[in-house]
């Protein structure tokens, strides 16, 4: 399984904090996971297509090309606004 987390405005707009995705391929990357999530419904398609979306793999910021493996923790969130 891949544990997927959503934060802040994205979490609210998807109405989802955590989503578990079964890992059926050895050649997954962040973009292909995102594509699976986008296909769930029109709202997810729209929200997860935003160009400013950030992604963290096992709590490190990564690009969409990063490889994803079974057991990984993936998080998607809007640009950060701390400080």
């Amino acid at each position: 399984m891949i544990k997927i987390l959503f934060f802040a405005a994205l979490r609210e707009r998807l109405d989802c904090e955590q989503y578990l995705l079964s890992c059926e391929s050895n050649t997954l990357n962040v973009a292909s996971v995102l594509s699976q999530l986008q296909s769930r419904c029109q709202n997810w398609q729209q929200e997860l297509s935003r160009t400013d979306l950030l992604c963290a793999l096992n709590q490190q910021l990564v690009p969409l090309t990063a490889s994803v493996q079974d057991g990984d923790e993936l998080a998607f969130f809007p640009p950060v606004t701390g400080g």
Partner: protein
Amino acid sequence: MSIFVAVQSDDFCLASEYSELRRNAACGAIVTFSGLVRELHDTVLHGMTLEHYPGMTEQALNRIATDALNHWQLAAVHIIHRVGRLKPNEQIVFVGVASAHRAAAFAACEFIMDYLKNRAPFWKKEHTAEGDYWVEAKASDQQALARWE
């Protein structure tokens, strides 16, 4: 060289942090920054809620502090960031840098804040008289990184 990072709901005390930073005898300069919840121009701000990504936040702040230590000769770096509900004028963030000379301390403090603003997973939601709104990221914060790259 020492790093102290904390993500907490409790407030922090500038005098205590300053005293901690002063402990190192090699330190000849201390620069501190504190960020506060600021009033809005166009509506009444009742407060804000700071959300974060537990685990990643601490790692991101430690990484930023380590990067600062690798760039400049520093004696100590302290970063404290609050989360949860905060009222106007409350303290949000503290960065304190101790070094032998002031130039390194000034530069490192700005470096840490610039990277914290762009890399640490915190999000602010403002509670105003007109409703609740997530704060949008500013292009100027992103542009501030250019001087370090």
